[in-house]
């Protein structure tokens, strides 16, 4: 099973790896997956004026999972909340050339994005 160059690149040079303070009011956090499944992704967004100005990720999972979440943070930066909702796992599959057996990694990344957006939304509503 050879990995695509892009997956290897994200693995060796992860983009935006790290964490924001979960309690900051401009931060949305999405945590998806489960240790028993071998995949856990934490995706965070920093939002100003309905635009994602920064994003960070941390992932427990295989190379494809790490690459999917790293790519997600790259794509999220600069998007509005509405645009971010439109990111589909199939876009990730295409960009990273994920084989069928790794498609679920991209699905998890999409779930993580949606979870982060939902978390931010809830915070914004409660303000």
């Amino acid at each position: 099973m050879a990995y695509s160059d892009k997956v290897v690149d994200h693995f060796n040079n992860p983009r935006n790896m790290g964490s924001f303070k979960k309690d900051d009011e401009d931060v949305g956090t999405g945590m998806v997956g489960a240790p028993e499944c071998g995949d856990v992704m934490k995706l965070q967004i920093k939002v100003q004026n309905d635009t994602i100005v920064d994003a960070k990720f941390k992932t427990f999972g295989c190379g494809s999972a790490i690459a999917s979440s790293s790519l997600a943070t790259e794509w999220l930066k600069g998007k509005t909340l509405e645009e971010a909702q439109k990111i589909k796992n199939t876009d990730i599959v295409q960009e990273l050339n994920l084989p069928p057996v790794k498609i679920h990694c991209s699905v998890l990344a999409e779930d993580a994005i949606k979870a982060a957006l939902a978390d931010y939304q809830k915070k914004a509503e409660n303000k």
Partner: protein
Amino acid sequence: MKFPIFLDNHSTTPMDPRVLEAMLPYFIEKFGNAASRNHTFGWEAEEAVDTARKQIARLIKADPKEIVFTSGATESDNLALKGVLEMYKEKGNHIITATTEHRAVLDTAKSLEAKGLATVTYLSVDKQGTVNPQDVRNAITDKTVLISMMLANNEIGTINPVQEIGKIAKEKGVLFHCDATQGIGKIPVDVQAMGIDLMSFSAHKLYGPKGIGALYVRKKNPRVRIAAQMDGGGHERGMRSGTLAVPLIVGFGKACELCEQEMPTESARLVKMRDRLQTGIMAALEETYLNGHPTNRLPGNLNISFAYVEGESLLMGMKEIALSSGSACTSATLEPSYVLRALGVGTELAHSSIRFGIGRFNTDEEIDYAIKKVIEIVTKLREMSPLYEMAKEGVDLKSVQWAAH
């Protein structure tokens, strides 16, 4: 140092150059069919096969006539289980085996169950992967015709109490099959002392060629009979038809001879390297867990779980070292290692495991390089891991509600 470094000697081994040398004449010069009775081509092939039988038998303290050649340990396992069930069906159809056996045994047992030809008891193992002989004794019924227990486990290296199991089998009049694929050539095997009636093993796990294995079939006390699964010509005393793969057999024999000669010094050397690797890694990193028995394990085997990092990403970060993992992501079926699960290791740690297999051709330099790399990549991946972050914050991961999909 040559890259990539091969530290996956439980999956297969490189052929010993001396084995290759022994095999070469039998491809082009001495290419006869060992069953050709009427000319020198056949006779010299047959002689080479006889020599190999002797070399193999000596390694396991058997009689050369008790060696049946097959295409490998998988075929031997199939032949043992199916052959015995068919032959002894008047006596019964119950098999006792364990949950940590190789797929070649488990899938064969399941296939027999599915066809209504056998009922199978799958004994569980303790936390270190050892079968309890008492459990074997308790599982025997008057319909039991076969006990199948491996000598040593391919993933965690744990060595089973084969001698005790053999004694119980003898006492109860049940045949004992041992899949010895991982143990032969690494630890001493004596089919007499161990009370073994049938034994599977293959050449490519002991620096011999792929494509050849053997089934030891006891001839005396008791005389074991099996129904052939390959018909057509009656080779191997009617137990396994098919023209013998002479060059492979010659290689198999030579590989066994070398193992017999080198085993004492080699296993001491492998244990030293393995212990060095183990200490080097586990002293430098926190939350690492050894899978399998701490001392009663194969000389070159090490299996460690690294909490908070996943196995496939570990392997990816050490591409220049060949290893294997119990992680679901590395298996074709996306299931984590059933062996680690059987130990009660917990699926999360099963996903985080790496198996190291040190062999004859590994060097101390390679071990030191591996230690360095493992520490490096585990540290890097823990930085990247949300689980590590949570653990460091004092979160009890077992109490978290995960939003799994």
